[in-house]
């Protein structure tokens, strides 16, 4: 939501490099990426732990106890002896529980957190992925057109419209869309159980939050700008000129560096914003997902749920980032390392 101007604010940054000779290069690089991701997720757990630990009222004890009660019987002598006292021991106990899939129990419902989340996680996943698709569907044509044709009386208004869209509060936009739906179909939109139910216009209603989040997540302007800049830059590269000179397809040559990499890059970096937007959109549409669940949990101070969702959200973000790195590595096996360092800023 803080659009960057020249440097993209959320690319995964790489700096320096470890290198061990001997192991095949690609495997080495992939392994490094996975290791870094694991380390980051560990850091995520530390941050979440720290926040809860420092919170007044010791929510962390509640969390640990919840973990124990929700845990599989016979987890071990360690747990049976009761909650450990020192902060490092508590952290490790909690982490161990999490890695086993035990996220504790919801304070409100008493049910295991992971179970609760997985009940609605799919809805949010659908919402997020769908919105991403919508954003790209709108941004890509505009960006490519603007890259090739420059600023003209087609690309300029479209880009400006995207800027306005990016500044529009998504929570208001949602109501506008619902209202329009109401007037077009005369049907009052219902809060639905899960996607797949409902007939006719109601099924159309499932698309609404996806369209709203896709258009209104505040990143549209930045996505268009990034894609346009990158493609524009690549189109003026020497090697694209050579491709033109030999009568080859410019698109084929510009595709990897000008399209594939920027798109995966910007998508991976905007996942956090989409998840944040999902919290709001789920609220507007009463969409049963993780976003609405975390909001409710914040109201109830249901820490196990909030923490579980925070961790899972981070996992989602890092997975996206990892996938993007995999694409990047697949596309240029070792080639243009200077480019890699240049864009790793």
């Amino acid at each position, binding site marked *: 939501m803080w659009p960057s101007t020249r440097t993209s604010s959320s690319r995964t940054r790489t*700096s320096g490099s470890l290198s061990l000779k001997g192991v095949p290069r690609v495997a080495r690089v992939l392994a490094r990426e996975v290791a870094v991701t694991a380390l980051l997720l560990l850091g995520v757990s530390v941050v979440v732990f720290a926040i809860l630990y420092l919170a007044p009222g010791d929510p962390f004890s509640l969390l640990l106890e919840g973990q124990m009660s929700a845990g599989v019987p016979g987890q071990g002598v360690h747990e049976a002896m009761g909650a450990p006292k020192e902060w490092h021991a508590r952290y490790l106990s909690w982490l161990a529980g999490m890695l086993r899939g035990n996220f504790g129990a919801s304070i409100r419902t008493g049910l295991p957190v992971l179970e609760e989340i997985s009940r609605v996680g799919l809805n949010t996943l659908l919402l997020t992925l769908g919105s991403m698709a919508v954003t790209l569907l709108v941004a890509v044509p505009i960006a490519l057109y603007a890259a090739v044709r420059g600023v003209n009386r087609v690309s300029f208004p479209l880009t400006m419209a995207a800027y306005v869209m990016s500044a529009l*509060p998504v929570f208001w936009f949602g109501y506008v869309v619902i209202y329009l739906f109401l007037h077009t179909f005369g049907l009052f939109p219902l809060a639905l159980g899960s996607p797949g139910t409902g007939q006719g216009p109601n099924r159309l209603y499932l698309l609404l939050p996806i369209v709203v989040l896709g258009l209104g997540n505040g990143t549209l302007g930045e996505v268009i700008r990034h894609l346009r800049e990158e493609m524009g830059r690549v189109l003026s590269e020497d090697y694209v000129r050579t491709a033109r000179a030999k009568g080859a397809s410019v698109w084929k040559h510009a595709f990897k560096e000008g399209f594939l990499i920027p798109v995966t890059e910007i998508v991976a970096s905007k996942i*956090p914003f989409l998840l944040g937007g999902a919290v709001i959109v789920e609220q507007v549409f009463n969409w049963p997902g993780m976003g609405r669940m*975390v909001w409710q949990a914040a109201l109830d101070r249901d820490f196990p749920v909030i923490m579980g969702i*925070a961790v899972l*959200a981070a996992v989602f973000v890092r997975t996206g980032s990892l996938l993007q790195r995999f694409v990047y590595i697949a596309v240029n096996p070792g080639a243009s390392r200077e480019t890699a360092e240049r864009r790793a800023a």
Partner: protein
Amino acid sequence: MKKRYVQAPEEAGGPSGLRFFRKTDAVDLLFVGYGLLIVVLVVASYLAGVFRLLPYDPEASDLGLLLAPPGTVGHLLGTDFMGRDIFARLILGIQAYFLPGLLAIAVAIVPGTALGVLAGYRPGRADTVITWFSNLVDSFPRLVLILLVVAAFKPDIYYIMVVVGLANVPATVSLVKVKIRFLREKNFIEAAEGLGLPRRTIVLKHILWHHCRASLIIRATLGMGEAILMETSMSYLGFGVQEPTPSWGNMVQSGANYFLQGNFWPSTVPALAILLAILGFHLLGDGLNNLLERKAIH
């Protein structure tokens, strides 16, 4: 459709104003102009709110005139569901994000530049660690992190803004790092060190003041834009500024129920205010970036 290219006749001095206008992109000037207008309005309204120089009474409930549309006599922008004047509440609502926004900006920029300098000046261990921290911070969706903090501590807009600020530290770090790398490539830093300049001077005066100043200002404008977005979003969700204190976010929320019944104004007026304000800061940042930064890059 033919584009026109003209060779202007040789002018001795020429109307310099017009020349500048042609040189720079008119669009960027427009953006900056609009952005500055918004900044002025926001600051003026903030001060008006603080000193209670309001056109109407924000708390008076005119029960006979609920949900009045804009243009109603006595209420330029209408009234909300409790009959309170929207215009006045709009002005007060700025207080919800103005100072907190400045806090967010400060939290983003001060540690950000410090870490950025550390990471960029002597790449190596420090750089790797700081990069890892940047990636760590970037792993969280901001809203979720805010909810976590709000649930753990309290729904205080200042706490929220600290989180927002911290979440933007990576971007500032990156900005400063890139600048330093650029200066290193141009051997600027080497030259300065060779001249015997003390490191502190190099960093503070040359790097930060001369080269990073513009980018940081742009970051700050975008930061205010984000602060507005975050504050209004959180207030909409009920965790930021709470009723009866007005916030543009909670004004949209309270008007939302009536929106679907056809009374869109109580919700739409604050929403438009959010739009115009955020757009102003974004365009200001963008315009300044094109005017200042693009010229500086070789």
